[in-house]
């Protein structure tokens, strides 16, 4: 009973949130509270009948209310009701869902299919077997009492991706009483997991100590299925338990792949009930009833889970939407988006209608009212922007000048005033909120705001009037101490749209052509150029000072050349970002950090309970153990007690012969970091505001409102704070602490999803790139790799050329190990492995050979094609030395990814064109092409991507961070 009510409330909440979303155009009518539609229940009337009668009465009332001008349709699954009411009143039609779909939406194929698959599931459920496969879940009261008394443990179930059949862990949540529990609880096998799915909130009971198991530490290929493991491959036994109840299902929609038709037929007698395999390995197979199995073979399909009874080995589900044939680029990209719960439909017409127009015929100009309200900086300030080459969405610009008296310097950061165009609560705002960020995939991007805003009206382009949100500091010209800060809305006109390289050349006094000055006369040009140069020089001076000031405050000293190189290498974008980082990058980044910091202070002061800030918690010390072990192998000592100590010790850990060692160590340190997160100040104690990476007490995101929703919220908070300062009431009500915390969580989740999607799309492209290359002959499949960690049956390596990490197995399934011949080449032979902390030895008849940490080896890359899961790359050691080829090629490193993306896209396009020609049917309508928002791999995309990578890195690894902003101003 409890479960029943629970399901109801969940569905109720889901319905409620659907109704709330204005994009759905739904209205809830409280018929019981309305005089004319209310009808009391009659004696002896069943509840169901009464409800139907109530709904019908409401429908009739509505029909009368509209004076019979519009027919009203009432949908029910109750055939008696259809028969009873349909003819009663003209203009009010009572029909079944199926009839409704067929007669009103005959073109909506997807909806009809969905209906059929759900109907089938409902039917099937009645005819299910009685054999019990799993233990029943305990009732809710028992679970609650058990949790309170400490007998049971409550937590979220996480399935081990690599051993989805066996290992799952439950991380006890903080409310658990059982204090002797030092680690997560292991749940071993499907029976013990008792129908829980990855992500569910479950209750587990610990097994007696004698039945505890250890976790497996050997590398396994994901496909191996059940295999015998020997004791030595397991770690110490850890607390093991079984699931006794599920408090909350966290099912989402899953992407699955249909098996080929022959397989279906051979597998079961009933070819309408099919087992499909989810793309996510952590999810068990799903049973689906459908008649389309033949048409859908080897297609990727979105499936929703319906139920999992104790009598059924697998959960039941139904099809929701077909994505396409597996292996095609479009399908795979959609799969990645879906699996990360990213929904990006083209902007709807209603949303676009809210946008202002800016075309040749209908030129957008500043409004007079706004000019009066804003501070006009068009003539007084020299404003310029510095961005990567070809950037369209310029969301920040800078200015610097000496104030008339000459004792003060004024530094200005001007950010696109997105909130002026995107009103709180408008459709665009809701859409942006649900997207939370612009998504960058390997070959395309999905904007958070419609293009007219992001690339035009909001973008601070050169030589046009634009609204901005500005922070102006008055600094003492000598000491550079802050005397005064001004926040407010402004009107600016950017004079120069510089790119980083150009700005740096100007600083270096090289003679370069500034495009904006090309048409001017010699004298004029010289004057203007001098003006610009002075501004840039002053800016650099200020940024240097700010940087040292932050260092003194304990900021991480990570901004060495190494970090940039490491970052570049990790993401493999070396060719795109200059190896020698330009000082101007740092200058711009520093100004942005400064602006973010001051805005954070301002809104935190004004709204101590409801400001959106960003913090970066100190990392968990245990995460550093791998880093420390690896560093020790090379004789370095890593001190992780504070951010400064960590940075210093990383700086010292440099191997003069092998720059990669330092890179890898930094990479590992990055992995140990926790993620920076948004939070609402009201729900977090003051001491947790600290940003570990940047070493700042307050930090937020303010400088990129075009592509991050958090910045939009911060802009609104800042506007409200300015209004309050002027003694006016803010005209928009601000989100309360609770709402803000919800939004912050949402943005954090979306950011994580965006990163994940980007990572997966890059992997996808890597696989597609290697797919049609013959690993045995093609030189591009052979690359240099460096060992960075040891496992029981293999090693983990990093391939600098492609920026990939992956496992290399030294032992195969026949228990053969890799042995080396004298010339360094490898072969499989019977033998054994021996593992030490810093090396792993293979012992065969050829002798003993050791693979040590940070050794350089040569590997061959091949693609392991999988039907149901994303393809994966398979690495195989072919030599323990560097081959000549590999060396040569590593010189050209860096182009790897650029080349790779382009080539894959070209192939996909060629393939789709071919199909088009053959079928003579365009796959996409014109509209779709137009609003699809994805672009080809032009230079802008790539640069944009680089920029975004920097950002991602910051947020993932913040810590190191900091430095990282290395990257470009994205901070």
């Amino acid at each position, binding site marked *: 009973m409890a479960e029943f*009510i629970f399901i109801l*409330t969940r569905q109720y909440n889901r319905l*409620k949130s659907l*109704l*709330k979303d204005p994009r759905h155009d739904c209205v*809830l009518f*409280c018929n*019981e*509270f309305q005089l004319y539609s209310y009808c009391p229940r009659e004696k002896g009337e069943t509840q169901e009948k009464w409800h139907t009668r109530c709904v019908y009465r409401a429908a009739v009332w509505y029909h009368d209310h509209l004076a019979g001008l519009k027919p009203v349709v009432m949908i029910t699954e109750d055939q008696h009701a259809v028969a009873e009411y349909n003819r009663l009143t003209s203009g009010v039609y009572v029909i079944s869902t199926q009839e409704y779909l067929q007669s009103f939406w005959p073109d909506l194929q997807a909806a009809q299919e969905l209906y059929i698959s759900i109907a089938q599931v409902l039917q099937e459920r009645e005819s299910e077997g009685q054999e019990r496969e799993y233990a029943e879940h305990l009732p809710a009261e028992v679970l609650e009492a058990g949790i309170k008394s400490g007998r049971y443990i409550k937590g979220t179930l996480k399935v081990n991706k690599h051993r989805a059949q066996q290992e799952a862990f439950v991380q006890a949540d903080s409310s658990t009483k059982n204090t002797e529990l030092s680690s997560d609880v292991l749940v071993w096998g499907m029976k013990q997991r008792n129908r829980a799915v990855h992500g569910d909130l479950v209750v587990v009971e610990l097994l007696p100590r004698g039945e505890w198991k250890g976790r497996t530490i050997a590398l396994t290929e994901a496909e191996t299925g059940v295999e015998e493991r020997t004791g030595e491959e397991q770690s110490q036994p850890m607390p093991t338990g079984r699931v006794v109840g599920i408090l909350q299902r966290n099912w989402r929609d899953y992407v699955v792949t249909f098996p080929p038709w022959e397989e279906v037929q051979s597998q079961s007698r009933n070819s309408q009930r099919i087992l499909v395999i989810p793309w996510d390995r952590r999810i068990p197979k799903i049973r689906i009833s459908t008649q389309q199995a033949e048409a859908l073979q080897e297609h990727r399909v979105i499936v929703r889970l319906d139920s999992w009874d104790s009598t059924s080995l697998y959960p039941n589900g139904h099809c929701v939407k077909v994505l396409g044939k597996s292996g095609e680029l479009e399908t795979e990209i959609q799969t990645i988006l879906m699996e990360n719960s990213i929904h990006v439909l083209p902007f709807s017409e209603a949303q676009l209608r809210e946008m202002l127009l800016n075309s040749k015929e209908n030129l957008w100009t500043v409004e007079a009212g706004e000019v009066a309200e804003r501070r006009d900086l068009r003539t007084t300030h020299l404003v310029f922007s510095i961005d990567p080459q070809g950037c369209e969405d310029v969301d920040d610009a800078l200015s610097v000048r000496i104030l008339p008296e000459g004792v003060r310097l004024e530094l200005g950061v001007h950010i696109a005033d997105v909130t002026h165009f995107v009103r709180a609560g408008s459709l665009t705002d809701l859409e942006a909120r649900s997207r939370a960020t612009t998504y960058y995939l390997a070959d395309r991007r999905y904007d958070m705001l419609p293009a007219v805003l992001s690339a035009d009206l909001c973008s601070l382009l050169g030589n046009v009037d634009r609204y901005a949100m500005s922070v102006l500091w008055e600094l003492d010209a000598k000491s550079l101490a802050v005397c005064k800060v001004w926040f407010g809305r402004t009107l600016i006109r950017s004079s120069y749209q510089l790119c980083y390289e150009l700005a740096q050349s100007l600083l270096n006094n090289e003679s370069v052509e500034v495009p904006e000055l090309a048409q001017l006369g010699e004298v004029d040009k010289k004057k203007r150029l001098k003006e610009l140069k002075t501004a840039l020089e002053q800016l650099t001076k200020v940024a240097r000072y700010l940087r040292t000031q932050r260092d003194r405050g304990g900021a991480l000293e990570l901004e060495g050349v190494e970090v940039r190189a490491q970052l570049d290498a990790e993401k493999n974008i070396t060719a795109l970002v200059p190896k020698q980082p330009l000082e101007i990058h740092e200058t711009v980044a520093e100004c942005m950090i400064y602006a973010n910091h001051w805005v954070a202070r301002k809104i935190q002061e004004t709204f101590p309970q409801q400001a959106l800030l960003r913090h970066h918690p100190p990392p968990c010390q245990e995460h550093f153990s791998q880093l420390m072990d690896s560093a020790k192998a090379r004789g370095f000592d890593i001190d992780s007690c504070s951010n400064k100590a960590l940075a210093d010790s990383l700086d010292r850990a440099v191997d003069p012969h092998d720059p990669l060692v330092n890179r890898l160590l930094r990479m590992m340190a990055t992995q140990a970091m926790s993620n920076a997160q948004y939070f609402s100040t009201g729900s977090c104690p003051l001491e947790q505001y600290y940003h570990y990476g940047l070493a700042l007490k307050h930090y937020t995101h303010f400088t990129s409102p075009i592509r991050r929703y958090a910045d939009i919220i911060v802009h609104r908070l800042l506007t409200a704070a300015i209004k309050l300062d002027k003694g006016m009431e803010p005209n928009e009500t601000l989100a*309360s602490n609770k709402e803000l915390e919800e939004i912050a969580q949402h943005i954090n989740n979306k950011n994580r999803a965006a990163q994940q999607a980007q990572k997966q799309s890059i992997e996808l492209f890597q696989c597609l790139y290697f797919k049609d290359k013959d690993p045995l002959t093609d030189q591009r499949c052979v690359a240099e790799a460096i060992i960075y960690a040891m496992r029981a049956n293999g090693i983990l390596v990093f391939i600098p050329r492609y920026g990939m990490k992956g496992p290399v197995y030294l032992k195969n399934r026949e228990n053969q190990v890799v042995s080396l011949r004298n010339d360094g080449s490898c072969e499989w032979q019977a033998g054994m492995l021996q593992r030490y902390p810093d090396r792993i030895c293979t012992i065969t008849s050829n002798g003993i050979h050791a693979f040590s940490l940070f050794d350089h080896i040569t590997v061959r890359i091949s693609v392991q094609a999988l039907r149901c899961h994303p393809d994966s790359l398979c690495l195989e050691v072919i030599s323990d030395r560097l081959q000549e080829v590999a060396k040569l090629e590593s010189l050209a490193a860096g182009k790897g990814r650029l080349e790779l993306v382009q080539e894959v896209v070209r192939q996909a396009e060629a393939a789709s064109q071919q199909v088009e020609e053959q079928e003579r049917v365009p796959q996409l309508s014109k509209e779709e092409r137009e609003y699809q928002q994805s672009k080809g791999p032009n230079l802008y995309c790539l640069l944009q991507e680089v920029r975004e990578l920097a950002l991602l890195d910051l947020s993932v690894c913040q810590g190191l961070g900091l430095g990282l902003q290395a990257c470009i101003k994205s901070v």
Partner: protein
Amino acid sequence: MAGLELLSDQGYRLDGRKPSELRKVQARMGIFTRADGSAYIEQGNTKALAVVYGPHEVRGSRSKTLHDRAVINCQYSMATFSTAERKRRPHGDRKSSEMSLHLKQTFEAAILTQLYPRSQIDIYVKILQSDGGNYSACVNAATLAVIDAGIPIRDYVCACSAGFVEDTPLVDLCHAEETGSGTAVALALLPRGGQIALLQMDARLHQDHLDPVMEAAMTACRSLGQVLDGVVRQHLQEVSILTGE
């Protein structure tokens, strides 16, 4: 009570009222002939009966006598059948005693006691059916009974409860709202002068929210005052017809 939604997104309460809507009030005066004054009131499903005796000589211990004004004696009780679970003690338990005390304070503030030195006025109130807002129903019934008894009173005493759910003040709480919302403010008001005879709150409420809640409760009290006024006038009319004046 997690599942109960006290205020829907459409702005309706559990029983279909809007946040500032009162329940239906029906009242009659002079229902008992033997008592000096009596009244019966229904506020939605809450029903209360009030009886007034006096002013008369102080009974019982003489020591209670006040030489400058009348003593007010209140007794509150609930019928055993008034709640969902049968009550064992209709009166005399802690809650009832507290309620009696509150009523006494309220009416000491409203009745012109100095007109009757060395005397006593008895007010007996009984809840016949309880569905939230017991205190307010008692006060409203007692006011009518006092008027029926012809005892001079400064103004109608009108009482109403108010709660705070999802940033919205709700007035005249029903039982489910009283138990589910956490906060309930009871307010007794003399509407003409706007004086507060009694204000009581047991649970916690943020200071910022107190003003809107009180404002809502006072508005509700004023409208109740009009209803009571209507009841008294109608009663007067009926009585005058009967007595043939």
